[in-house]
């Protein structure tokens, strides 16, 4: 593919349920992207290292444990610190509505509630690609 976008689907936090993350990973693969899946229970440090080594364009974070307000800011600041500030970051999982503005403030492009159609994710990626 001429323009293979690389995406890391990252699973930070302690919850061990990754059906959702794997579903997203497969769906994005089927949409023609090169997708790397991190596996469960990754620290922010490990995820940021993966994103940088894999030179991904997009990082998708999947979290069910409710620790997003601690983990996501840590991930975003590590990304900025290590030169990964040009990576598009989105999040999915169980995240209360009232937390979303705060997450967008720290640079997370979009937050997808459970059950979001995969097309919504693709649209965000493709819009970002076009705007570059």
């Amino acid at each position: 593919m001429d323009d293979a976008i690389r995406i890391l689907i990252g699973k930070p936090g302690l919850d061990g349920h990754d059906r959702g993350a794997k579903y997203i990973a497969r769906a994005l693969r089927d949409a023609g992207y090169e997708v790397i899946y991190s596996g469960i229970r990754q620290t922010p440090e490990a995820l940021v290292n993966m994103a940088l080594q894999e030179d991904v364009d997009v990082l998708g974070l999947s979290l069910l444990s409710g620790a997003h307000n601690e983990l996501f800011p840590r991930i975003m600041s590590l990304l900025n610190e290590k030169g990964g500030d040009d990576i598009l970051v989105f999040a999915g999982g169980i995240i209360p509505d009232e937390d979303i503005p705060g997450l967008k403030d720290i640079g997370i492009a979009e937050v997808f509630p459970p059950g979001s159609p995969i097309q919504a994710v693709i649209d965000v990626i493709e819009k970002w690609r076009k705007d570059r």
Partner: protein
Amino acid sequence: MAEGQVGPRRRTDPADLAARVRAGETRAVARAISVVEAGGPDATELMQLLAPTSGPAHDAVRPRERSLVAPRVIGVTGPPGAGKSTLINQLVRQERAAERRVAVLAVDPTSPFSGGALLGDRIRMDLHSTDDGVFIRSMATRGHHGGLSAAAFETVTLLRAAGFDTTIVETVGVGQSEVGILSLSDVVLLVLIPGSGDDIQAIKAGVMEIADVYVLNKADRPGIDALERAVRGALGETYLFAADRAHHTVPTDEPGEAPARTGARRESAGVPLTSPVPAIVRTVATDGSGLEDLVTAVERYLAHSLETGALAERRERRFAAAAEDVAVVEIKRWVRERHESGAIQPSELRTALRNALDTIRRHE
């Protein structure tokens, strides 16, 4: 997006990138691999800049490499699910214990349906995700404008320039281009597991010929003895056959002779039988048993092939293999383009191609 361009993010100047690769900066190494994968003009410039000590042309003749076993490239191949990634996780651990910096290049197939790929090897390599001395990169088989073998070759070259002592390449080793990647390796490990008769067929069909060390993984499972017998049986046949052929041998430098890899093939190529018969090692990658034996087998193979000159020979062949890959990819693309603007006769193509090559020769 235009061909040869890297992702939708900002471009990095090749000179800047090359300097940072040499300094071993992770972000730069990662970006440089993407540049090489895209195969555009930036890739050419980058690889030229990295050439003086480690570029393709020098890679073949770099004297330092003739006297050292490191930096080295270990190829790991075998069927899906054999435990290659799990085994590499353990190999990396051993390399780190020996204080070597390690890079892993994990190649997975691109889906023929969507053009996308799901690259899951690093899930099994999670012992090392925060170790600065370990760099892991996943690569899909397609999407390489210069060809997969060339992308892998240049990636290995730049990983060396970045100071990695060992590069481990994982591939499923089925397709032609994946076998091509294995030719990058100083030593090839073939991972097999008990209980799948298919493996033995694959072995006999020739995958076996490329291996220097046979890893019988999942040795905790029933059927491991039968697997070892089957492998020894198949190896015995290969060796007998090759030894037999050796009596009707061709000169060493006969063009088109297969690379001398195993003892038997060295002999069949008219070279004295000096390489050891490939080692067979049992492992349980999930708990690390057998890993010391495996590392010993790899070290012995490398030391031996360094001594006999087989290592230098192999390294010299890499460049030719990658160069041929590039040529084939470029010509195929040109042929496709010609066809898109109307079907053309093979003879017509031949003439056009020969004329073009003549022009190239005149400008050399």
